[in-house]
């Protein structure tokens, strides 16, 4: 492993040979705006927002696809660089809907973040705006192609993370857009609704439909947890507002899955609030299950188990523990059966 030394904004930094200028900046906490870059995806050099000035190079090279060299001198914030970035942002905002008030992405929108930083209101270049239909065909992903900035990250996430390649660019120039083959709605395509595209979209073109109107990013607390829907053990963030789970978002630090998830993990959390949830103990009285207080239910169980143990021995009682419950709960269940009841009659659905 060879280390190279370069100067960024007058500061000397060392990075591994083969790193890009962007990586060198990020590692040294030097902020560079990006729209099309994601560490989990291959670099595209599409948005050009990460341009920097490098001594001896003509034009302003995009830092995400420029490798560091020994002794390189980089400037990331001089007026020439900032003006170039501002022009790029002006052009993007010029053809971007300005419904930020109601846009679910606001607060997490990279375009708005950089527009704010660079003071871009979108008034410099007045021109035609796209007016494409919004894809609301499915219960999971809301797709507004008018907000798309054509960064291409969703396309890469679909092919590189998910291995599906549902999405690609179509048309040219002003008409260029991203979508499934023949521009059909998502639900008519071969989409698995893993939502990887949503997790990388820097703007409001792809958002979690279930979260629309439920809360702004700045009002949400994120709680990292482990998915309950198969044995892979993906991690994600439950988004909580006012004591209620309003959605799931990827956590890039998740050890097993990174940003990838499947349709169940990302969107199946609405099961928590199913109207069919049991919310109170039930006891069978005269053949019917009727609501009861906890004390009554637990006393009944304790006395029944005690009675049966006394009359028929501990091995006349068994428990089914659960592959859906936590380790701690399974531990408690087997300890309960072994130490309190006195039997090894404990098993669970280990085989399905």
């Amino acid at each position, binding site marked *: 492993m060879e280390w190279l030394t370069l100067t960024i904004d007058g500061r000397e930094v060392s990075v591994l040979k083969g790193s890009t200028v962007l990586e060198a900046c990020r590692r040294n906490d030097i902020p560079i705006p990006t729209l099309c870059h994601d560490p989990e995806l291959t670099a595209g050099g599409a948005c050009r927002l990460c341009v920097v000035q490098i001594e001896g190079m003509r034009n302003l090279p995009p830092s995400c696809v420029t490798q560091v060299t020994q002794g390189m001198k980089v400037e990331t914030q001089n007026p020439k660089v900032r003006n170039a970035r501002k022009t790029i942002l002006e052009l993007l905002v010029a053809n971007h809907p300005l419904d930020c008030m109601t846009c679910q992405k606001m607060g997490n929108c990279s375009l708005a973040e950089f527009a704010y930083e660079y003071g871009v209101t979108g008034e410099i270049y007045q021109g035609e705006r796209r007016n494409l239909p919004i894809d609301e065909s499915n*219960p999971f992903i809301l797709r507004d192609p008018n907000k798309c900035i054509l960064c291409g990250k969703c396309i890469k996430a679909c092919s590189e993370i998910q291995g599906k390649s549902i999405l690609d660019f179509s048309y040219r120039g002003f008409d260029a857009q991203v979508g499934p083959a023949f521009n059909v709605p998502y639900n008519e395509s071969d989409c*698995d609704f*893993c939502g990887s595209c949503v997790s990388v979209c820097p703007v409001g073109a792809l958002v979690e439909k*279930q979260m629309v109107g439920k809360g702004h990013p700045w009002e949400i607390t994120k709680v990292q*947890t*482990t998915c*309950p829907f*198969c*044995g*892979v*053990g993906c991690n994600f963030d*439950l988004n*909580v507002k006012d004591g*209620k789970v309003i959605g799931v978002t990827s956590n890039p*630090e998740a*050890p*097993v899955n990174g940003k990838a*998830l499947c*349709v*169940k993990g990302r*969107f*199946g*959390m*609405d*099961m*928590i609030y*199913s109207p*069919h*949830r049991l*919310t109170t103990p039930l006891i069978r009285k005269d053949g019917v*299950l009727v609501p009861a207080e*906890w004390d009554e239910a637990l006393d009944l*169980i304790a006395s029944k188990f005690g009675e*049966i143990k006394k009359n028929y021995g501990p*091995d006349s009682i*068994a428990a089914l*523990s659960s*592959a*859906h*419950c*936590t*380790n701690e*709960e*399974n*531990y*408690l*269940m087997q*300890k*309960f*059966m*072994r130490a*309190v009841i*006195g*039997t*090894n*009659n404990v*098993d669970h659905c*280990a*085989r*399905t």
Partner: protein
Amino acid sequence: MTNSINEIPNTKAMFVIGSNATEAHPVIGTKMKQALAKGSKLIVVDPRCTNLAEHSDVWLRLRSGTDIALINGIMNIILANGWEDRAFIEARTEGFEETRKTIEKYPPELVSQITGVPVEQLIEAAKLYATAECAEIFYTLGITEHVCGTDNVKSLANLAMLTGNLGKESSGVNPMRGQNNVQGACDMGALPNVYPGYQQVANPEVQAKFEAAWGVPLSPKNGFTIPDMFAAATSKNLRALYCMGEDPVITDADANHVRKGLQSLDFLVVQEIFLSETAKLADVVLPGASYAEKTGTFSNTERRVQMVNQAIKPIGNARTDGEIICDIATRMGYPFEYQSSAEVMQEIARLTPIFGGITHARLGTQGLQWPVPTIEHPGTKFLHEGKFSRGLGQFVAIDNQLPAELPDKEYPFLLNTGRKLSHYNVFTQHSPSLEIHSPEELAEVNPVDAKRLGLEVNEVVKVTSRRGEVKTKIKITERVPVGMIFMTFHYFDSPTNELTNGAYDKTTKTYEYKVCGVQITKIA
């Protein structure tokens, strides 16, 4: 799994047998596709044309229940071509010679006859797997849910040892566990023969250790497994059942047999988050909490113990399952006084060597892969490096065995069951969005059979077995071979396990969900 999930993208060959990873383990499926993009070879063994089969280099469409013959045949070809790893066999294994004799009874032509797979495909598969620089075997319930499930697994171990594809990075045998914490429930000793960490209940030293820790005498006798429980209940040897977070009426094979067992009990307690079919039979139903409402840990299929963090309070008057158990224990005169699930984990770590170094604080956001014997230990990425748990790897000679019930004149179709991407087990139908997306069973029937029976797409048919009947909509597709019907077990309205066979593997007591005979009849 002997390997970690993130080793998958770097493997050079994948042998996927009885596993529909892109649907049942979607993110592992994506890792496999990432490996393919990097040039890995893919062998898929499955009677159904799964999504992975479409992406494979060679797809072996074997007859259901002929896995052992197929694996023996592949080993036969490997030996015939000298592709085996001599050094590994000599240094790390025993019992090879005896197994070789059995393997020799399975020449490619015979295996082709048994399995229905052409000889050239067998050779191609053997070559791809045996000659790759590193190779991983993946299997799921298509291997274990057979009466010969244990022998199927041992055959795969033979294959891995024969080629030395074990105990290395991106090289091993990887069963993918079906449920989110089935690994953890096993690790925690929710099994009738072992305490936490697979410590045998019959071992007097282990018994003494837990008696000292828990301060009560403990039984050295193995308890009932699930199939035993229903039989014992019917014969009144079992009087009470405490069922937490399981719905055996829907998930266990031969639902009518299960229902009969449960109805014979004197007292049934069900702790659940929904009023399941099993809960409907209960004397007392207790409302538990969902994953968002509690703190604890799950162990995933790569042995990674990870935090589950409470995000919201339990809904309504519900309580976490842990609190409920503690409360019942206390009411029965043995106080379970834990301040938090972190404190329970401290007790687990004290008594369970493979969890010895695990605390909630250490798990943090990244988790740890057991074995984690000490508080300094970094966890274990892949198993069997340099040495197997038992010392040398044991080759076991195994012969092909038939499923317990094959199609016959009366029930001419083979029923195969499994999962689909949009649902998980029997409760995701409670998710409004998944329910909209994928609202009903669509049993798969081959076009040839559909034509013969005069069935249309989306037609509702009756499927009958010796044990029960269900109604289901059908989809006509070549994904299933002629003579097979495939159903999932996710839907309330088509409870597939009314049909499945309660025969099970003699060692693991796993039901043969993958093969039984059924009849399909038009309703109108």
